[in-house]
């Protein structure tokens, strides 16, 4: 495995170099909010101290609005056209918990019998540069270690940029996709012995703190018996049913499909949607299987920790803590997990 040493300035320079041949999505700071944004010539990279920007990189794989196909209307001349092939893109500085979130999206959108071609086309041209941090910079709201993810985990990354917490970084090139970025990387010095030693130390410390104490299989079993439990009343009571948690969550992937016309051309698009909105499950007849917030709050938790695991073998949550941070009523999903543990056997 090739490794390189970088200073903080080198990191910005690396992002700039990558922009020459790719679209690059990286954390920036805008009006006090760290967000993953497409870098432009005038954008400065800003890695958040805790490594987890409030607005995730989800939109690079599942855009907030994505054209499924274009169409032309006409009495006998209707036609459709595929959207253009997506351009090569680099996700720069993806925290390990967000890298695992990408795996959730991969599992859902590649599932047979209907692989999602638009997602897979985008995924194929995406290179992931993970971001590792010393574990003591983990935000208070994040709980990925409880889900078996460490702050220096480089698995499933194409490259991995480790912040050594002393102004220096190590870049690991891990896959062929990573090697394909050689022209931006080759000029960097090989990683020094000191840097590699420090990385090993920080990595060991990070791994040691991975408690993995949330037993997903057990959680799924418990939830499968809690559909009618009273606890959902409390979970839902302060929830205002907005989409903040779902939209900021890197694994939430539910979407709506709409036709957008302009005159006699248009496109069928998919937009982010959330199970927290009343319209989400409303039939044309007016019937709605979920009419109150208890049912919707329950659905969110069930989808994340029971159905996701039941259907795909992985939970739909990687402990990034964005929902905890962004909820206007400061609901905390970790409290819900505790409540689930405390429920008596039905």
């Amino acid at each position, binding site marked *: 495995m090739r490794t390189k040493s970088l200073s903080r300035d080198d990191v910005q320079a690396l992002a700039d170099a990558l922009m020459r041949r790719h679209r690059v999505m990286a954390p920036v700071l805008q009006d006090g909010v760290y967000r993953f944004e497409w870098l432009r010539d005038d954008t400065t990279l800003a890695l958040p101290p805790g490594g987890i920007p409030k607005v995730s990189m989800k939109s690079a794989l599942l855009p907030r*609005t994505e*054209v*499924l*196909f*274009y*169409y*032309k*209307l006409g*009495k*006998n*001349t*209707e*036609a*459709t*056209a*595929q959207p253009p092939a997506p351009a090569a893109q680099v996700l720069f500085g993806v925290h390990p918990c967000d890298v695992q979130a990408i795996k959730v999206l991969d599992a*859902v*959108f590649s*599932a047979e*019998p*209907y*692989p*999602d*071609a*638009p997602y897979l086309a985008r995924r194929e041209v995406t290179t992931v540069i993970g971001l590792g941090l010393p574990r003591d910079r983990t935000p208070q709201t994040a709980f990925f270690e409880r889900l078996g993810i460490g702050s220096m985990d480089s698995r499933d990354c194409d490259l991995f940029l480790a912040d050594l917490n002393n102004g220096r970084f190590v870049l690991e090139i891990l896959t062929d996709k990573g090697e394909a970025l050689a022209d931006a990387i080759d000029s960097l010095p090989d990683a020094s012995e000191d840097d590699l030693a420090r990385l090993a130390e920080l990595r060991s410390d990070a791994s040691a703190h991975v408690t993995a104490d949330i037993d997903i299989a057990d959680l799924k079993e418990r939830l499968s018996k809690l*559909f*009618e439990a009273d606890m959902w009343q409390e979970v839902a009571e302060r929830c205002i049913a907005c989409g903040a948690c779902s939209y900021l969550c890197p694994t939430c*992937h*539910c*979407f*709506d*499909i*709409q*036709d*957008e*016309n*302009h005159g006699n*051309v*248009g*496109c069928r*698009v*998919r937009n982010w*949607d959330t*199970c927290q909105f009343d319209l*989400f*499950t*409303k*039939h*044309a*007849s*007016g019937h709605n*299987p*979920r009419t109150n917030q208890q*049912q919707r709050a329950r*659905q969110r938790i*069930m*989808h994340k920790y*029971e*159905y996701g695991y039941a*259907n795909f073998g992985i939970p739909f949550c990687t402990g990034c803590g964005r929902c905890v941070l962004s909820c206007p009523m400061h609901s905390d999903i970790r409290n819900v997990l505790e409540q689930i543990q405390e429920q008596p056997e039905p």
Partner: protein
Amino acid sequence: MCSNRYRNSLNPEPLNPHMPPNPYIPYPVTIDKITVENDARDLRTFRLVFRNPADRAAFDFRIGQFAELSLLGVGEAPIGIASSPLDEDYIEFTVKRYPTGIVSTALHQSEVGRQMGVRGPLGNGYPVERMAGKNIVIISGGFAVTTLRSTIRYLLHPTVRPTVNDITVVYGARSPGELCYKSEFLEWQERDDIDVHLTVDKSEGDWQGREGFVPSVVSEVAPSAENAICLICGPPIMLKFTIPVLREVGFDPEDTYLSFEMRMKCGIGKCGRCNIGDRYVCVHGPVFSLAETTELPREY
């Protein structure tokens, strides 16, 4: 309100006539025939022909499956397939118009010759593989009969009929004017290779047939549960009262099948909205056995 960015000068490529790699692009079809099914005129059957002949072969479906009917510029709606898989030249869908349904409303305002799209076939379908050598009992109410009509047409086909034993059908509607596929059912009533019992909740006009709710007719007919598969499709109230009757007559929940409806968008298990518990109605359903249904949480 149209978003500015999506103004697009279109390059009108024709659709790939074979299985599209993009699962969201529909097969192009044209409305070939429209039949009004009921007196209230809010149920119409649309016969669709594929504009690319090879697409009909690609659209190889089983009884009980559904498709997303697409109207470009309007949207899509998930509708059960009403024609038989062995009807080679066309496919049919019976659509109820809902005032709040933009697609059903636009469809009902359409004329023969209108171009539209079909995406599918989708869903699991009825368990055809279990039907060989069995007695088939079909129970339905109202306009939920669409996929069961597909089933009856299929079972009565000369190549299929010999593979199953007796076929018993109980089908009811609120009034004679609400019976779907009326002429077909009346014809089937005359045949001796199928036992059809039509009924209405309330008799009207020159109706000579039976009057009675579907659950009580099922009770009277008392189809034997021995070596039988039951397919049942109807409004919640009909299901609620008929299922106990079936149980009394001895039907095993493993041998009784229902079909569910849900609000759908993608129809392929990605958009996350049609689930009942951990089952997506569009992929794991819409057909579930009664036994499976009792395992499902009550959110439908």
